[in-house]
């Protein structure tokens, strides 16, 4: 078996090498087919099966292999895909989706309500141990299915071949937006259970592309156009995804683009100014303010960050502009709110008054009020190996310079970092970031700031995402109210108030920068290239020139 494998390896290597040389020349469309092949590099995904597909790398593949009820447009609005309609009852706890008829999986199985129920049930089932199943946690019967008490998802039912009924355990008028997440994908019968390895590595979906062969771990994934796609068919033939090693994949993507090996690439932050100068005039430089935020999480319940004044002192002490320019080369913009601008309906700038501009006097005043004295120690944690080392030092230095605090930087590998934050008695501040799973304000406010978001275990370990342990009943009430509000405008208003309360008044956390995404895209070869909501190239929509 070893021998066979190594022989394959050699052949593979030669093919790759030839491909690399073939693509060296820029306008050399080897045999007409090369022009319709989109090439890019990603890091090894955790999973590409919707059952556990979670980060943008896996998402890139899953989103192109599967099509669900909705998709999110770049402006945060929903675009119906297989859902011809999706309506909630008046209470907002029951949703009915009509599904487009007569579409098929690439193996010929029909995509109907059953296929959706199958997919969702499969994701939540205990044996799948899915990291993304929790997105379905407001559907009735989630707990029983997830804990193995039941093998049926009681909240789901098919009211006809193409009608999917979803019962929620609590009202949510934005549930349809959640279904844009890939875990809500339908799967064919052949998928089997969530831990079916063969399906995990070669999922059969109903998306614009299908797998060519299996996932070659750490090497490549190849997608080809699904000519039986039920919606608008893709215009490119093939997507060749090279899997790069994570620690320098960004550099490799960039170099790969420069050498003509890739059609799409991220860049190392330091190289961005150079890349921008070179590629922007050629229209190969794409920018997208995506749905995410970088912020500093403050531990609200422990001294010294246990008062809004203390947190405001820190926030005022930070010169976001200067770091954005000096460290991020002007490529990140300071954030003045928690919610991202892509959420057009709820986004309001300037929510956080301490975020507007560095104000040393105010910082000092608040510090005094909070009892923060020069020489006091402030723990500042961050996870290493993810490119935060530099700017974290800059922030620390500013806090030290302005407030005279002794900032103790503590870089840890992320599992340890997480454990440290979860620990009871965690104190100080911690670098953090959040990006949207789906375009709802709730997707930010609820996990990060609601009392439920703390989810402490018996030892006081915060298992939820609200590790800053901000807890304000008034805020919690507002979120519940918003979820129950049918009118979108009304709902947005409540969310705005809630955001203002938590982020400005209580300064539960300290926003730093908006998440901006930059890509190099081979617009010479492809038309219509964009960065989409998930920060992926919109492969299904582009066309070769």
């Amino acid at each position, binding site marked *: 078996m070893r021998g066979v494998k190594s022989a394959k390896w050699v052949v593979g290597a030669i093919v790759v090498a030839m491909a690399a040389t073939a693509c060296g020349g820029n306008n050399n469309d080897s045999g007409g087919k090369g022009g319709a092949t989109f090439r890019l590099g990603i890091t090894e995904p955790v999973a590409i099966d919707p059952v556990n597909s979670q980060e943008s790398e896996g998402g890139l593949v899953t989103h192109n292999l599967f099509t669900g009820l909705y998709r999110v447009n770049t402006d945060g609005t929903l675009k119906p895909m297989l859902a011809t309609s999706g309506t909630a009852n008046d209470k907002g706890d029951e949703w009915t989706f009509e599904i487009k008829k007569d579409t098929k999986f690439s193996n010929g199985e029909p995509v109907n309500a059953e296929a959706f129920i199958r997919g969702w049930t499969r994701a939540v089932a205990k044996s799948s141990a899915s990291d993304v199943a929790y997105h379905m946690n407001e559907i009735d019967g989630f707990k029983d299915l997830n804990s193995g008490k039941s093998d049926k998802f009681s909240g789901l039912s098919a009211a006809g071949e193409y009608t999917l009924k979803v019962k929620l355990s609590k009202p949510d008028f934005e549930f349809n937006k959640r279904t844009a997440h890939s875990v809500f994908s339908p799967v064919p019968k052949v998928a089997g259970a969530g831990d079916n390895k063969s399906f995990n590595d070669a999922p059969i979906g109903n998306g614009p592309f299908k797998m060519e062969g299996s996932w070659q771990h750490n090497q490549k994934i190849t997608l080809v156009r699904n000519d039986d796609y039920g919606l608008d068919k893709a215009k490119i033939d093939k997507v060749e995804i090279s899997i790069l090693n994570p620690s*320098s994949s960004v*550099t490799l993507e960039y170099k790969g683009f420069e050498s003509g090996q890739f059609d799409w690439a991220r860049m*190392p*932050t*330091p*190289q961005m100014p*150079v890349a921008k100068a070179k590629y922007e005039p050629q229209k190969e430089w794409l920018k997208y303010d995506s749905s995410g935020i970088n912020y500093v999480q403050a531990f609200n319940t422990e001294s010294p960050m246990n008062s809004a004044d203390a947190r405001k002192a820190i926030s005022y002490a930070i010169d976001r502009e*200067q*770091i954005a*320019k*000096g*460290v991020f080369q002007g490529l990140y913009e300071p954030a003045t709110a928690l919610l991202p601008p892509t959420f057009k309906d709820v986004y309001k700038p300037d929510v956080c008054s301490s975020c507007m501009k560095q104000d040393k006097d105010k910082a000092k005043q608040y510090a005094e009020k909070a009892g923060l004295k020069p020489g006091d120690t402030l723990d500042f944690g961050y996870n*290493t*190996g993810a490119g935060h*080392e*530099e700017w974290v*030092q*800059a922030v*620390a*230095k500013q806090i030290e310079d302005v407030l005279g605090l002794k900032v103790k*930087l503590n*870089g*840890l*590998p992320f599992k340890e970092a997480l454990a440290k934050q979860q620990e009871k008695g965690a104190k100080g501040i911690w670098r953090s970031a959040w990006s949207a799973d789906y375009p709802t304000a709730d997707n930010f406010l609820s996990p990060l700031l609601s009392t439920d978001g703390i989810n402490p275990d018996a030892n006081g370990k915060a298992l939820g995402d609200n590790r800053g342990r901000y807890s304000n009943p008034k805020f919690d009430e507002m979120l519940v109210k918003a979820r129950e509000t049918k009118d979108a405008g009304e709902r947005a208003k409540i969310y705005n108030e809630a955001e203002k309360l938590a982020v400005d008044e209580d300064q539960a956390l300290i926003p730093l920068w908006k998440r901006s995404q930059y890509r190099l895209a081979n617009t010479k070869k492809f038309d219509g290239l964009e960065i989409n909501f998930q920060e992926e190239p919109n492969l299904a929509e582009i066309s070769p020139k």
Partner: protein
Amino acid sequence: MTELAKSQGPGAATAEPAAATGTAEPAPARITQWGEIRHRFMANRLAVVGLVLVLLLFLTAALAPLIATHDPYAQDLGNTLASPSGDHWFGTDALGRDQFSRVIYGSRIAVVVGLASIFLACLIGLVLGALAGYFGKTVDTVIMRIADIFFAFPLLIGAIVIILVMGRGVMPVILSLAIFSWATVSRLLRSSILSVREMDYVTAAKALGASTSRIIIRHIMPNSIAAVMSFIAFSVGTAIVAEASLSYLGVGVSPEVPEWGNMISSARDFMGVKDFLWMYPSVAIVLTVLGFVFVGDGLRDALDPKLR
């Protein structure tokens, strides 16, 4: 007894005159003592260069605050990634910190980690070696098996595991390097002492009734110690590289600390764009390692000049 008689000359049955032990060849290692070793060491140009480099390193580390032109931690976000200039001789890094001062301060970590870890390794090696020697067979076997276990870990891998447990920082780096170096040290000490113990001249000294301590000080020590010193010089160089490697991999000392591996690591993203970022710390580390290698070579050659 016959063997002894032969090497002792006087009274031997051969016609070779009594005094004829010395020859025209360079004096063999066995009669050399400190002075001889030093003389040969100093006569070796590379060794002297190495010594100068090492001394310079120590001096730099000790006098870093006087040599450095800036506070190595002071940031200047308005002047990041500046190329080398009159004010910033080695340029500035991504946070606008003065690279020259950071390279200078970096010598401190190198010296401290290099010396402390090897010192500790020698200490552990010696203590365990002594235990093994004192308690004899069973303990010796157990200790040597333990040494085998630690020996089997590649240095970096072992060190990383320890650092995972203890967290990043100077102390963990020192400890982790020591923990996975002592086995080598103890093996070397053991074999070096064993081999020297068996040499003719020690046997001879014993037969002449020299006391054990005298044998050790006058005969075993100079050669053993010089051998060990040569090994230590190499080891310190190795430890400095290992320490920088750990930082390069992002598991060494904290990233804000001015340290060569850190600097080179954070320069990776600027490869081909801002090459001065990795070049200066690289030169520093290369000179340092070469210094120790030259000294190690010099010591070895001074002991065994035949191989030059």
